[in-house]
């Protein structure tokens, strides 16, 4: 890989230890994956924020990186933390955890990274445009940026996204190159799909087939006439979780579907496939075992918060009901009066965090959610049973 004089100097340590380490990570990746050079990026999303995931070792790594004067060179936002930064006590987070979580956030903010603490940076201000080279972590956001926005990013790990933030560069390989964005499989959807729940099930159905094929081919999906931003964010989260996918093309909806033809090899998804996918996420057992209800994986949009407020007006919830969203989105919800309606109904705002990364292992028996991604982590990481249902039914479940 060819480095500029400036890049070589940074690699030799002239811009300090954190920048040297950042450059070392990028050069190593570029060398491994055959990049010809580093290219500038305009936007970064950093994952690896919850102290529950980082542990003390991860925190030390970040504190080391932040100890000099290295600063993010481009717009950089942060993934969800392990707690609501302001309201953590109401979520039952202990004080030691909170202190450590604050140290993580401090390390990032010292490096000039904006603590949005959200998996949906594209809903408020970190919105790359078509063809823009970016470096994002967070699998659901990577899939959204590549597919829906048509920006270009590899699936970055926490440290490599941080390295891109500090240097403003990323190695030129993988999804940065047009030839690697070509679809390898047509998916014909012969079913009616709607809502976050329906699109989540579609992500499971397609993701599991591609995962089983052991080749991460890019699907070109036809047969879906329309999809809202909320449905697409749900689909991206599900497809990334169950298929490890970072990019899809959706005919008539995503921009690069215009660049490519649908490939010959074809997979058909029927109504029955969708039902099977939904059933896969539903643990056997009565729904009345549900003792935890959560909406907001990925983080709720303003429109979804409006809908929750509408359904909760004048009623009381009877179970712990977490509303997970980004703080910027919540600020507008505050102004619109949604927040007070939701809180008066007894639901709890868990801003900055979500039920995937908060330290709630073993705290509940069974979760009700509309999110296919949340089901995966609720079961694998937190040991909960999962009940997967449409958005409005999740709210109804909280009222039972």
């Amino acid at each position, binding site marked *: 890989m060819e480095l500029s004089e400036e890049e070589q100097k940074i690699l030799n340590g002239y811009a300090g230890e954190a920048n040297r380490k950042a450059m070392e990570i990028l050069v190593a990746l570029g060398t491994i994956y055959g990049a010809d050079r580093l290219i500038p990026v305009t936007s970064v999303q950093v*994952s690896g924020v919850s102290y529950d995931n980082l542990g003390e070792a*991860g925190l030390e790594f970040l504190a080391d990186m932040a100890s000099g004067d290295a600063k993010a060179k481009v717009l950089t936002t942060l993934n969800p933390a392990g707690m609501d930064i302001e309201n953590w006590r109401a979520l039952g987070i202990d004080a030691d955890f909170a202190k450590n979580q604050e140290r993580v956030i401090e390390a990032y903010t010292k490096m000039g990274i904006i603590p949005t603490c959200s998996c949906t940076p594209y809903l408020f201000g970190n919105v790359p445009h078509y063809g823009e080279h970016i470096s994002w972590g*967070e699998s659901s956001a990577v899939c959204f940026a590549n597919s829906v926005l048509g920006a270009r990013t590899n699936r970055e*790990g926490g440290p*490599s996204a941080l390295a891109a933030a500090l240097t403003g560069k990323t190695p030129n390989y993988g999804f940065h190159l047009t030839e690697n964005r070509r679809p390898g499989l047509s998916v014909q959807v012969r079913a009616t799909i709607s809502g976050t729940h329906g699109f989540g099930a579609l992500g499971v159905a397609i993701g599991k087939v591609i995962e089983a094929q052991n080749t991460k081919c890019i699907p070109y999906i036809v047969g879906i006439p329309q999809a809202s931003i909320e449905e697409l964010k749900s689909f991206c989260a599900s497809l990334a979780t169950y298929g490890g996918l970072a990019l899809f093309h959706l005919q008539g909806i995503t921009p690069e579907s215009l660049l490519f033809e649908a490939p010959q090899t074809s997979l058909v998804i029927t109504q029955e496939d969708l039902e099977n996918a939904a059933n896969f996420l539903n643990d056997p057992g009565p729904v009345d075992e549900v003792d935890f209800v959560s909406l907001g994986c990925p983080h709720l949009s303003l429109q979804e918060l409006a809908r929750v407020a509408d359904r909760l007006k004048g009623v009381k919830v009877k179970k712990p009901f977490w509303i997970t969203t980004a703080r910027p989105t919540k600020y507008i919800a505050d102004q619109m009066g949604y927040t007070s309606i939701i809180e008066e109904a007894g639901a709890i705002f868990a801003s900055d965090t979500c039920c995937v990364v908060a330290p709630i292992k073993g705290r509940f028996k069974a979760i009700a959610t509309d999110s296919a991604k949340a089901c995966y982590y609720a079961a694998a*990481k937190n040991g909960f049973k999962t009940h997967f249902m449409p958005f409005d039914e999740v709210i109804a479940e909280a009222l039972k």
Partner: protein
Amino acid sequence: MIFHGRKISPGVAEGEALVSAMGISFYGGIEPETGLIVEKGHDLLGQSIREKVLIFPTGKGSTVGSYTLYRLKKAGNAPAAIINAESETITAVGCIISDIPCVDHIPIENLKNGMRIRVVAETGIVEIL
């Protein structure tokens, strides 16, 4: 027997081979406090990766996995080296920041549990001793 692969992360190491036919997700799949593989249904479930030459086709799962490798290293539970058929970004970055030698493009079907393996990552060499 000697195999020539590609350097992912530099270093020299020697240890007993622990071989999986499956992908590994470091985040969620391995407990950083113990080095034990905890993924349900994994062919190495319950085994420790500590000080082993860990051999598996490729990584999978969460983008936080690089930090899990770093936690394993700091807790003294990291593998001595990692050998992949094809290393992906998450494993590669985890090895680089944790100083774990890593080599890929090795025909891993030739490596069996319990073999004594030497890895010279700089030159991409994997040797069965």
